[in-house]
């Protein structure tokens, strides 16, 4: 596996462990005297009451909305092609068999 000669996962693990140790060191030097269950551990939103947990959670359909909008011209026909109809699946198969056979035949002729 000559191409992987430079790749050493053990070194990567050691680097990760060192990184975790540094993070732990920083974290351990943080404030320890806060009081649980008081305003010190509550969400602060400029004095406003924070919304309920269900409303605070960003749902899956909101993530990458901009990405899908930007690629609308790609996504609209691609999703439309996924009809869910088994007849269409078989048509794709027959088309691919025919195209492959024709390609092999043309290459054989040339």
């Amino acid at each position, binding site marked *: 596996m000559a191409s992987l000669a430079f790749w050493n996962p053990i070194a990567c*693990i050691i680097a990760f462990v060192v990184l975790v140790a540094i993070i732990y060191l920083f974290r351990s030097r943080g404030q320890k005297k806060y009081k649980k269950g008081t305003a010190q551990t509550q969400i602060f939103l400029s004095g406003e009451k924070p919304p309920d947990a269900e409303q605070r959670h960003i749902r*899956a359909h909101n993530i990458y909305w901009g990405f899908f909008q930007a690629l609308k011209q790609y996504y609209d026909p691609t999703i439309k092609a996924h009809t869910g109809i088994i007849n269409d699946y*078989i048509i794709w198969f027959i088309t691919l068999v025919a195209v492959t056979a024709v390609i092999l035949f043309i290459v054989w002729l040339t």
Partner: protein
Amino acid sequence: MHTLVAHSAILIIAIPLLAAFLTPLISRVSKKARDILVIATLVFVEFLVIILAKDIYLNGIHIYTLGASSPSLTIPEHYMVPVRIILEVDAMSIFMGIISATVSLAATIYSISFMKEETGGDRFYTLLLLLVVGMLGLEFTGDMFNMFVFLEILSISGAALAAFRTRFADALEGGFKYIVISAVGALVILFAIGIFYSQYNLLNIAALAQAMQYTMLDKIALALLAMAFTMKLAGVPMHMWAPDTYSVAPAGTTPMIYIASQACLYGLFRTCFTLYGVTLNTATIGWIVIIIGVLSMFVGVTMAVHQSDVKRLMAYHAISQSGYMLLGVGVGLAVLGNPEALASYGREAMSGGIFHIINNALYKGLLFLTAEALFFRLGTRDLNKMGGMCRNMKYTSIFFIIGALAISGIPPFNGFTSKLMIYESVYRFNPILSVIAMLVSIITLASFTKAFQAAFTGPALPQYKDVKEVPKPMLIGMGILTIIIIFFSLFPGLIVNSIVNPATDALINQATYINAVMGGL
């Protein structure tokens, strides 16, 4: 031990077949005894696969002729060609066998807790063991007709498992779609076998490969076989059945049905490399495989990132990952007739693609199990309804993170290693293909970031405050795959040198496969 090794190829198929039909009988006596029988069967199959693999890596191709006075007697006296059923297990076959046996064992352990809350456990385990028989038989057979038979066993049991939860309409639909595409695919494969038989009076793969003339009819047979196997492995644009089926299969059966699709990938490779080999125009068929691979990678991942159903998301990623395997092995196929290019980067590309099969089987299997764990506890597959699960399902969260990092090709996980091999070697064939593969990997990471954020992070949702971690057998099933992923991540060189490169060489060296049966005739 010597006798066990000598008969291991047939025992690997026969033991789960026998256990499949014993399961309903033992189930009438004791459900616990049935569970023990199923697990013990798969543990023994795993053991047999390992000792057979060791024998193959030491002594070369393992031949088993059924009905002969000696298992190695492939051609009967007074005959010029092999007529008996022959199992021919080379390094590529056993590589696939290792994947099938390992994932099946982990998935079955995972399924035990799930089945305690379902009815019809005896039928479930019968079907599950028949699926194992279908996979291993397809991978070990040296005969085209038996390949068709095992494909049928695999398809029927897979469809029945997909539709197992008959109370869900989408399960019936998923099972129905799987059986329709499988039946059409199998019929087309049978037609291609008929073409071979009409021309050569042969069914044995090695004998056919030796006799292959690459006539016009052989080209039609190649198109039929290649596309039928590609549809079964869910290559784009024949992939649309996969999300419908994978998303509805219960418990641990989704990874198994997925591995069954990988067995069809083996069928495609065996057809192109061994049955046809250099007699065909490898550059043309290689490019066809590459194009399907690139389409699978790109369409699969872009559709995955758009999903809100966690199992459909996983299913589209399964399609996308198959694209990497097709790309890597397709490059090897495209340069098969060019020894210089094959030695320079073709073999490396193939090794990358083949290494990706086992890596993907492990982390994709793990991810399917984590998705089913979410469904098991939350009763929904909809990511929009999930959140904060890392508080309630700590171990499942860790398994998900490991699987997600591995599939996204993040170092030091095993997915990175096989993808790196593909990127490097494919770049030398065509840089654009390599860039597309890297782009797909980035979108894969984005997709799993979305899934993790939606399901596991965020505030604790009140409706899920009582949700607990999944039962221990489900954790053990996921744990087995995680441990293997970590091992593969730490020692990629060992895996590539010991099982991947021999599998690559087995595909490239068509003559060795032919001579093992034909004996230089």
